[in-house]
Every structure is written in C-alpha cells, then in structure tokens.
C-alpha cells in the first residue's frame, strides 16, 4: 500500500464528490447537493477546488454545470452501455480518475450504492475510508480531513483521520448535511460556474459490467421522510397497528410525514422504511413529534438534529422527555386524536 511521502502531499488537491444517481438515468439524487454543499465549504477552507463526478448512463446530458453552479469542475463520464449499478465498473473508473487527477478528499453518499462502491474504490486506491460520517471538517495546520461518525450504537462519537494516505475518503449519511445545500439566490453572483471535463469509460472497465436482469421499484412512492420538514413519529407506546393509523392521519392532515421507532417497526405496524435512528434514517426536520417513543440513544442519533422536538409520553421520566423542547405527559393516542379532530374541524 502506498504511504504518502512528505513531499507528495501537495500533489493531492481538491475535494471530490461522487454524484449519487437519482430515480432515472441522468438525474442527480438531491443528497449529492447536501454533501457537495459541505464540500464547497471544505474546499474554501482548504483553498482548493470542488469537483463533482457524474458517471453512468446519462443519456447524453452534459449540462450538469447548471445543477452544480457552485462547483469548480464537473467531470462527466457517460456511456449508454452502463445501465444500473455495477460495483466493478464504477470502482475501476473512479480509481483511474483518482490516479489521473489526484484529489485530496473523495466523498460518497452513504446510500446502498455508495456504501457498496466506496470500500471497493478505497481498497483499489490504497485509501482510508470512514463510513457514515455525520460531520466533516479540516484540521487546521495539517489540512487533514476530520471525519466524525457515531460508533457503538451512537453511544460514542468518534473522530477519524487518515494521515498517511491520499485521497482521504468518506461516505456521508443522507440528511445530516441538509443545512449546507448551497442556495442559488444567495450564492456569489460573480462566480463563473464549473468547467466541464468529459471523460470516458474504458473498454476493460466496460468488460466488468455484470448482467442486470431487471429492476423492481418498490410499490408506491418511495417513503421519503428525510425530505419532510415536519415528522410525526410513533413508537411501541402507540400500542397497536390500528392506533398507529392515527399518526398517519394526523401527518396527512398537518402536511407532515409519518415515521417510527424500531419498536413500532419490530412490532410489524409499519415497514422498515419508516424507521428513524442509527439503523434507519437520519432526519433534520424543522419539527419532530415523538409519540410513545422512549428515546433510546439509537433512536436519538437519527432525530436529535431536528429544530423542535416534541415528545408525548405517558412516562414523564422517559429519556426522550429530558431532551425534548416540549415534553407532554399523557396518552399519545388520545392526544393525537384530539389534534386531528381540531385540524379536521378547522378545514
């Protein structure tokens, strides 16, 4: 494995974001902008450039400069033979581009795709990789990337460095960097926008394509709690699947999204896609109402960054009641039913 010599550090520059593909070919998943927004700040701190890598079957699109108006460069590799996600092909391409351009930092989204791809690239590139980061910073002086992630079920927050290897790589949890999304209207109007670099997949990489026989989208729309600003979440204290429907009813009346603790998911009242927490989704909504949720650390790590947290619990001593902004002692089912009634009456 290459260890970087003192003289070689300077050869690795710039912050790279590996774009996460969205629902259809050529579309970018919005989570990319969360990470790239923080990437913009890190690049500025480091006096370096922000690069975005957009790869796959992009249908001939090259106008990604519009999406990434705040980046310095956008590298595009488009090939109609690539359909779906091929770990081997993508990792070989990214490794080759890393060798060619030598970024100092490479960031992926901690999605199923990113978490499968990043470790493969890290091994091929002799790079250190930190999974599921919740915050990223640049160490003053050394310029090392400080990568912070919860460990041991959220009981500990660990900060990780990769001092002797370049690039430094990390995957970043969707949702945790939402606040960094660059706002088009307030972004430096004098900024010239990104240069576009066109790259290609090479034959040996294409030969690694595995066969994708078909893709089945899950029925109904993807349950996208992460994008909602108002989340109403239920736990085991809701008591039954029927009672849980009051969460969904209130959410739909109030324009929020329903979610759950693992307690409610394990009880079989709602599918796993509802789960908030360490092994579920991380959210940063404006308001989070936790109904019948005790507030174990594994749940808290997924929602504690919300602006206002309201807890409704029968037990005033439950841990969630200490961390909430508003702690309501009472029966969640009754209280939510009354709240729904009030909304229905006012309509």
């Amino acid at each position, binding site marked *: 494995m290459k260890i970087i010599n003192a003289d070689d550090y300077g050869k690795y520059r710039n912050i790279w974001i590996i774009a996460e593909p969205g629902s259809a070919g050529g579309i970018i998943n919005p989570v990319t902008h969360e990470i790239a927004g923080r990437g913009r700040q890190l690049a500025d701190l480091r006096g370096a450039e922000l690069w975005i890598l957009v790869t796959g079957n992009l249908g001939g699109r090259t106008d990604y400069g519009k999406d990434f108006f705040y980046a310095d460069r956008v590298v595009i590799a488009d090939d109609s033979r690539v359909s779906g996600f091929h770990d081997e092909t993508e990792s070989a391409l990214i490794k080759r581009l890393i060798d060619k351009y030598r970024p100092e930092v490479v960031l992926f989204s901690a999605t199923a795709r990113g978490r499968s791809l990043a*470790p493969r690239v*890290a091994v091929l590139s002799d790079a250190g990789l930190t999974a599921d980061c919740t915050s990223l910073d640049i160490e003053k002086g050394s310029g090392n990337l400080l990568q912070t992630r919860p460990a041991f079920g959220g009981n500990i927050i660990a900060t*990780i460095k990769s001092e002797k290897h370049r690039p430094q790589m990390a995957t970043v949890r969707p949702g945790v960097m939402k606040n960094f999304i660059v706002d088009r209207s307030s972004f430096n109007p004098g900024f010239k926008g990104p240069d576009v670099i066109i790259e290609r997949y090479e034959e040996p990489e294409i030969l690694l394509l595995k066969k994708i026989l078909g893709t*089945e989208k899950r029925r109904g729309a993807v349950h996208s709690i992460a994008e909602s600003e108002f989340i109403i979440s239920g736990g085991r204290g809701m008591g039954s699947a029927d009672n849980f429907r009051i969460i969904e009813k209130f959410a739909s009346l109030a324009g929020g999204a329903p979610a759950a603790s693992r307690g409610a998911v394990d009880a079989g009242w709602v599918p796993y896609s509802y789960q908030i927490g360490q092994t579920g989704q991380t959210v940063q909504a404006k308001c989070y109402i936790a109904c019948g949720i005790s507030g174990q650390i594994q749940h808290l790590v997924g929602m504690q960054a919300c602006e206002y947290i309201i807890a409704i619990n029968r037990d005033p001593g439950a841990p969630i*009641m200490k961390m909430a*902004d508003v702690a309501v002692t*009472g029966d969640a089912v009754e209280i939510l039913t009354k709240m729904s009634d009030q909304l229905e009456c006012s309509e």
Partner: protein
Amino acid sequence: MKQVPAGSSGSIDPVTKRLKREGIESVINPYDTYALEEALLLRDQFGGTVTALSMGPSRAEKILRDALALSADRAILLSDRKFAGSDTWSTSYILSEAVRKTGNTDLVICGKQAIDGDTAQVGPGIAAHLEWMQAAYVSAIDITGDLLSAERMDEHGTDRIILKTPAVITVVKDINKPRLKTLKGMLESRNREIEIWDFDYLKCDESLTGLDGSPTRVVRTALPPPRDNSTIRIEGSSGAVSLEIMKFLREKMIIEQD
C-alpha cells in the same frame, strides 16, 4: 463472521467514558447468522463445504464453535497480535488473504454490516482485494454453474443481477431464517478442531495489518453532545394539552394559522 459484544451497542463506563468490553459476553454478529445459514443452505442444495472464518481474539473461538454446532464443515480463526487494531481496509486484506489461502473458495458470504462498527465495508473490501465481483445487500440468491443470480436491495427497490463466481456477497436478514442449534450439534462440535491461523502461517504483508498498517485511525472519542435546549413541560387533560401543542405548532409556523 465477526464476534461482537452481546447487547450489541455495549455500554459506556460512566467514569472512564469508554466502552465497557470486559465481562460482556461475545456473540456472533447477528447479520452473520444469515450469512452462515445461506452458506449451509447452498451446501445442502449443491454440495461443497462451508468454512466459518473469523478474525479476532481467541475468545472469538466461541462463535466458530457455534458455527460448527450449526453444521459448518470447517472453522478458521485468524488470530495474532499483529492483526489487532486493524481498520476495515486491513481487516478485509487479512480476510482476503485467508480466503486466498483456502485455495478453493467459490463464494464469500458476509453479513450486511457488523453491529459494533456498522461500517459495512469489510465485504466489498474483501471483494476488491481478491478482485472478485461483489453484490451488497443481497436478499435472495440462486446458483447455476458458475453464475450466481442475486436480488440486491437499495433505497428504491430491488435489482436482479447475475454475477460470475468466485464472488463476494453481503446479505440482509430477509434472505433466510437461521436454524437453531441442536443439542446433538452442540455435543458433536465440542471436540472438533478450530484451526488457528496466525500471522506467520498466513504470511501476509505486515505493513498492511494491525494499527500501523491501517490507513484510518480514531483520534478522538467523545460522548454525543447533549442537545442545547431547555424543556417546557406540559401536562393536563388530553383536550387541554392537545390545544397547547397545536398552539406551539402554529406559533412556530410548522402548521398553518387558521
């Protein structure tokens, strides 16, 4: 298979603020029980042998003994001081060297992630070191000749893909229902051999193992910061508190004023 502390997340010593490891029982990483079960099912269907492989301290023998009790054919523990402190890069390197050394492995099955570190990096890392194909988050597989068809999950749904073996897959719990240990299996496993492979036996590259061979390093651990807020307490009749919550939601403009 990785041994992890039981209760999964461990607990924090209130004085030292470090993870308590002592006195906590180790168990098989729960996701790895699905990996083992899938291997046993494949063997029962197609023949071949199942090797349970773990890198860890000597107490990890226990989970390998469990694997033997569940009818694994062979158990190997990679254990050496030079392996201690390895990060996921180095761990996957050492595991891949062991797979190479077995000489005849067609398929490596890992759990989706280990519940202590939660990185999900070791499986794809092994694949990369071996330069084999990989599929992560697999919920079903089938085999024909040297082709493996797999259902691979992501946030949007499922892909059906075909890989060429040898390959590495990581599995989610939807893939099967692990069998339970039987008394007979436990008794039979008592005297079976667990092979211990150390650094000298594996003959891997020392500069790539252990704390010093690992590209990443934990430089700081801390307790999660408390939320910086004060709590308003509300109690009373359901009717009264529901009005108060609605008032709060309107004041903060979370729901519209009427």
